């Protein structure tokens, strides 16, 4: 018995030694600046990452052509020291900073940017952000047209299948058969951005029959579209990165050619998908080149250590060209998702910055702290409506639902965090953009009248509505409150249904829901980021809603000059479809009257924003495939000793605007005084 006991003691000692081993890697002490980073980053590969936690690290260890100035968040020269644009705003020529080097001492060249941008667009990279650069010449073709053309062509391709289908229905192709075909081959995904006058209306056609001639024209149009995509893809492969699109005439010159004038382009050069990567490092180990010890970076900080679920430790990069202005020597990013833990760490002084780091229930207490900040964010919380399901296919029903919710009560009594009621989809704070009047104010009599018109007086006969949300206390609270509103104000029987995150996503994607909760964070400060997703068959649409007029406006907004150049009759017909025609005419006149190229660009941009405004009007006044509820607030706790942290930033005109995306580059953060519990 005593021998066995001795064995147990030895085993215990060995185990305790193991404990010691797990500590040895952590004996580094507290970093100069410690912040709560939310979820563990999935990757630190700039072309493959999405999400804020990843972005905070990427902004610290990489540097794009520009980076965001701390006080204005506008792009200022980073890896590029200067740039010039052509008068039409389509050609950008960046001069690279000669003293910018990689962490291994090599120079950062234009070729690194060509490599990274092509990598972002290459289909094998499978980047979720590739679409961001689709306005670059050849980019969309390089990114998607190859596989689309392949799926359309060939003996098993969609074109061959459609021809077979047309052959089998000599008396005409019923639209139901056509729509089944569209679904089977996933045609909307293969025809992204299609503008063909035959194909586009056919995609959304719901009833009737295509005559034999129409059906064969449809097949011809599909073949034409395939040939066009194949040809453009071939051209993109031959020229992108070589002499067109993005290319490097010499190591210190990086040229970008845009397909359409894109005012937010420069902003994207400070956004991580466009950051350069070190080619030899990436190609040596494509899957894990970004691990500490291997990774080669060019930003103000270096990735020193990354222990999953424990911390990411950054060190100042002594080789960074602007190292003299970087104050922090070490930074720790803690992957903590639990808000209670985050708050505890903050209160004991272990953490200096904790974005959204407090339990929602404590908002009333936290709000009164001097170290709390809360500003509107570029995020909208809304419900999708499944427009393919009865009775939600009737816009009157959708509008009635939207009118029956008192958003003021929602933000003041349910959310209580300073959220802003939303009656539009585009979040406020986007430069120069004004959303159209929302028709979604709280108006119960009108909602009831609309519901009655649609055949459901006092909600009688209305089916049970399921409000789908992913499992979360906060979402549940909102869903139950909305259910209560619908019941009380419309007599509609609604209930909240939760699904775990993955199941929820799949239900939404398969259009297997009535109403489903959603949130959207703008990627860049332009209405496009909130609006282009609602085009017919758009990947993130997921409501089944489509409107040809809407699609046309979004398409024209990417090339507003097309409106200017339209033949008079066509332009007149187009203007007649607008809700605010006089304003559009005034803007068109301004473009014509512009004296110099710069004024013309500005006038075209105003016209572009108006096109978005018209599109949003269709979305929120007529179609309403979504019910916007509120705009998020960006909140957090920041220790008073942190300097260079701005929850409001200076706009172009000198006024102060909210820091919409909660961006606080560490490059310019300084510490005043030692760490400790905040007072």
């Amino acid at each position, binding site marked *: 018995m005593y021998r066995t006991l001795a064995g147990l003691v030895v085993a*215990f000692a060995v185990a305790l030694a193991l404990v010691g081993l797990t*500590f040895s890697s952590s004996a580094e002490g507290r970093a100069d600046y410690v912040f709560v980073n939310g979820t563990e980053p999935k*990757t630190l590969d700039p072309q493959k990452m999405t999400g804020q936690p990843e972005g905070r690290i990427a902004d610290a260890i990489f540097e794009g052509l520009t980076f965001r100035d701390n006080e204005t968040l506008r792009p200022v020269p980073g890896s590029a020291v200067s740039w010039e644009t052509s008068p039409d705003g389509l050609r950008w020529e960046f001069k690279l900073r000669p003293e910018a080097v990689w962490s291994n001492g090599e120079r950062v060249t234009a070729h690194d940017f060509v490599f990274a941008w092509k990598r972002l667009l290459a*289909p094998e990279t499978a980047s*979720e952000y590739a679409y961001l650069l689709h306005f670059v010449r050849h980019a969309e073709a390089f990114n998607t047209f190859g*596989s689309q053309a392949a799926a359309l062509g060939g003996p098993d391709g969609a074109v061959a299948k459609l021809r077979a289908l047309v052959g089998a229905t000599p008396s005409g192709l019923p639209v139901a058969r056509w729509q089944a075909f569209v679904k089977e081959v996933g045609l909307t995904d293969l025809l992204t951005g299609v503008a063909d006058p035959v194909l586009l209306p056919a995609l959304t056609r719901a009833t009737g029959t295509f005559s034999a001639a129409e059906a064969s024209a449809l097949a011809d149009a599909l073949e034409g579209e395939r040939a066009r995509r194949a040809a453009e893809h071939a051209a993109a492969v031959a020229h992108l990165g070589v002499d067109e699109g993005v290319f490097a005439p010499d190591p210190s010159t990086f040229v970008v050619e845009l397909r359409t004038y894109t005012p937010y382009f420069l902003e994207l050069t400070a956004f991580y998908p466009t950051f350069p990567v070190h080619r030899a490092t990436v190609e040596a180990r494509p*899957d*894990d080149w970004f691990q500490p010890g291997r990774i080669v970076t060019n930003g103000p900080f270096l990735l020193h250590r990354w222990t*999953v679920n424990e911390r990411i430790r950054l060190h100042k990069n002594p080789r960074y060209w602007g190292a003299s202005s970087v104050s922090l020597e070490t930074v720790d990013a803690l992957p903590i998702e639990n808000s209670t833990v985050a708050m505890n*760490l903050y209160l004991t002084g272990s953490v200096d910055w904790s974005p959204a780091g407090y339990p929602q229930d404590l908002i009333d207490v936290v709000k009164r702290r001097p170290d709390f900040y809360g500003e509107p964010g570029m995020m909208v919380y809304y419900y999708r409506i499944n427009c393919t399901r009865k009775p939600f296919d009737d816009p009157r029903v959708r509008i009635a639902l939207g009118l029956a919710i008192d958003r003021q009560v929602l933000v003041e009594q349910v959310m209580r965090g300073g959220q802003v009621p939303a009656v539009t989809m585009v979040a406020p704070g986007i430069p120069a953009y004004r959303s159209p009047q929302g028709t979604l104010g709280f108006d119960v009599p009108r909602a009831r009248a609309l519901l009655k018109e649609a055949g459901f007086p006092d909600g009688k006969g209305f089916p049970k509505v399921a409000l789908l949300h992913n499992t979360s206390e906060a979402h549940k609270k909102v869903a139950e409150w909305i259910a209560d509103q619908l019941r009380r104000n419309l007599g509609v029987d609604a209930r909240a249904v939760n699904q775990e995150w993955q199941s929820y996503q799949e239900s939404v994607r398969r259009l297997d829901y009535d109403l489903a909760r959603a949130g959207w964070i703008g990627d860049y400060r332009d209405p496009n980021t909130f609006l282009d997703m609602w085009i017919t068959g758009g990947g993130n649409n997921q409501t089944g809603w489509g409107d040809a007029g809407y699609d046309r406006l979004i398409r024209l907004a990417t090339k507003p000059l097309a409106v200017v150049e339209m033949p008079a009759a066509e332009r007149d017909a187009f203007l007649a479809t607008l809700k605010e025609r006089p304003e559009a005419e005034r803007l068109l006149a301004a473009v014509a009257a512009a004296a110099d190229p710069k004024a013309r660009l500005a006038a075209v941009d105003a016209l572009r924003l108006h096109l978005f405004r018209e599109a949003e009007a269709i979305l929120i006044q007529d179609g309403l495939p979504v019910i916007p509820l509120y705009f998020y607030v960006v909140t957090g706790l920041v220790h008073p000793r942190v300097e260079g942290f701005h929850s409001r930033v200076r706009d172009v005109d000198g006024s102060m605007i909210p820091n919409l995306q909660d961006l606080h580059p560490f490059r310019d953060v300084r510490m005043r005084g030692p760490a400790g519990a905040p007072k």
Partner: protein
Amino acid sequence: MSARPTAVPVKVVGGLFVAFLAWLAARPFLGGVGGALVGALGGAAGAWRLPHRVLVRVLWTVPLFFLLIFTAVQLMFHVPGDPFASEKNTSAEVRAEQQKHYGIPEKGFAGGCKFFAAYIEKAVVDGYLGPSIKVQGRSVVDLLLPALPVSLALGLLALTIAVFLGLLLGVVAGLRPSTWVDYVAMAFAVIGISLPSFVIGSLLILGLSLTLGWLPVAGWGTFAHLILPAVALALPYAAYVARLARGGTIEVMSEDYIRTARAKGLSEQGVVLKHALRGAIVPVVSFLGPAAAGILTGSFVVETLFGIPGMGRWFVNGAINRDYYVVLGTVLIECGLVVAFNLLVDFGLAWVDPRLRGKT
């Protein structure tokens, strides 16, 4: 040890199998040669030293592991969602590219079978347990290996606290049933069992960290970081152990051999230490097998509450994220620990209770 007719083949097959298991387990960390060395040594030692019934039990784990992995794979391939789902809709091309890259076939039974075959092949032939899909650039071993000692450290300390505290309370209460000592101890046990560890943990944080400032609220890095989570993890188990030990003690104290011991003139202290304690331990040891497996693989709740980089969160996050390879990695670890601890418990029982020796 008595020779039985079946002993020799079982020894040979079992020894080979133990060698194989040791090789599989050691190879990811030590490489092919090191794994082979460990395997050969382990196999020889196993065949030579391990009793017949251990080898039989070990052999049984083979079909068990296969069945378990197969079931886990099929479940994963039938629930909605996959590792590539994202709030932003990814195009068909992106999805197909990702599926190819990570070797994930289409969902459904056939896809599950294909994945199972490929997984087993990779695990056995290459000794590779696959990549994490959600934490890119890391393999399952990269993720679980650093987390394992963290959870083991925490679990071990918690287990020690649970056993010592539980036994102390249980035996003391069992020796004086229906006295105030008993009531106090059992009141503690009831509270410990009914309060979930996140409540205990939160109370500990509130008292010892936020108010008194004695211990860190969360994080990992020093022994001080270990204390609160270990206590939070241990208390419910300690309470359970106390109740079991109390029952065991009461039962033992009414046995004839206790009276005999007393009649022989053994001191009360001697009676308790030599006899009562053994009796009290029997139910505790049976409980400790599954409990130890659970406590050592980490607790999601406690790890989250104290921000500890242990294994518990992989069990939960792996499943939530549909990170297929991580899920299977956690299944392997949990299964291995449960099997191992059940074996240990059987031998522990045989050690504390002579009546069970020779039975399996």
